[in-house]
């Protein structure tokens, strides 16, 4: 039986799509049959980040409307056999995702896959609610910044009251914090909320801390999920997060600023 994992945040630009691509790829790399679904109808981008934008023929809404079968719409990843992508529709509006239609597709995917990763759109409207409704796990992507933390808290409230598990009185959705765009140096200087600050407020278990890294932009530029970039801190941090998600114990890295040489320090002072 597959686990449904929603990647959500409330706020836009927190790194949901980057995270969905990285986590889905990471799960598939470890041999789990994984499908990643883009719920951002009208503003699809997961296809670009995954590098399969030119292979989209049918989409999520086509399947819901019965214009294509699920098999036709699923895009097999070129790099990993166990990974598939279900793109969002670029032309319809959000309301095209009907609760029944989404439910049916999720149930079908549950049979064939180990993990169904749902990339939520920003906001708390229809698309976001559809993405999180069926979730067993939620990865809440948060930036160490006031608006993002507030929105994440709002999202956590919705997960505990409006999800299928909440409505059917099952065990609650298990929520994990993924703190992204973390700049340890600015935290040290007191310019940015620390990991501890965010944990004090949100009070959910920590999946990982993704440091701010130029590698994320490089990765989306080339359509290769950043988890492949094992030279970058962000790529390694996502690797750790996937391992922790699967139950491995891994120490958290990149929480302290890198030691700077004297000249780097001097240069910074002079600017």
């Amino acid at each position, binding site marked *: 039986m597959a686990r449904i994992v929603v990647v959500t945040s409330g706020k836009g630009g927190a790194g949901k799509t980057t995270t969905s691509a990285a986590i889905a790829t990471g799960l598939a790399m470890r041999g789990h049959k994984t499908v990643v679904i883009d719920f951002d109808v009208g503003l699809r981008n997961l296809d670009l980040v995954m590098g399969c934008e030119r292979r989209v023929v049918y989409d999520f809404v086509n399947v819901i409307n019965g214009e294509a079968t699920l098999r036709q719409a699923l895009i097999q990843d070129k790099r990993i056999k166990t990974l598939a992508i279900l793109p969002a529709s670029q032309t319809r509006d959000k309301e095209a995702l009907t609760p029944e239609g989404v439910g049916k597709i999720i149930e079908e995917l549950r049979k064939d896959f180990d993990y169904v990763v749902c990339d939520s759109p920003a906001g708390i409207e229809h698309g976001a609610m559809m993405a999180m409704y069926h979730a067993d796990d939620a990865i809440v992507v948060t930036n160490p910044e006031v608006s993002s933390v507030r929105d994440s808290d709002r999202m956590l409230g919705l997960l505990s009251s409006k999800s299928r598990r909440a409505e059917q009185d099952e065990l609650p959705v298990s929520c994990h914090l993924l703190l992204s765009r973390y700049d340890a140096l600015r935290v040290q200087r007191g*310019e940015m*909320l620390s990991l501890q*600050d965010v944990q004090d407020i*949100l009070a959910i278990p920590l999946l990982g801390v993704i440091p701010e890294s130029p590698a994320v932009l490089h990765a989306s530029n080339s359509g290769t999920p950043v988890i492949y970039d094992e030279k970058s801190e962000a790529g390694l941090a996502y690797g750790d997060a996937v391992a922790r998600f699967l139950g491995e114990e891994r120490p958290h890295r990149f929480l302290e600023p890198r030691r700077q040489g004297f000249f780097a320090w001097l240069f910074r002072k002079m600017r």
Partner: protein
Amino acid sequence: MRFFDYYRSKKVTSAKSAKERLQIIIAHERIQNSGHDYLPILQKELLDVIRKYIPVDEEAVKIDLDREGVCEILEINVTLPQNEESAKAKTRSVRLFGRKGPAPFEV
């Protein structure tokens, strides 16, 4: 080194004020968005009951909703006036209950 520590501790960093502001607004919003529509009414009714016996003002009853893992904790603070003469108020904090999920209640 001590001198530097002293200098540092005086500064209120922006991260610190961010955290404080967040804690206040989020505690407030958790009540409003908790899905428990009864919380504001509960607050009002509690106040009414307390007022029947003790003269307290509007601000005396504070309700906070907190989360600890899967547990939601409803914290009710009632500020009681100590006696007529002293203006000093005494705060009693009562942790009422935690719910949501399988974890045992904390009473």
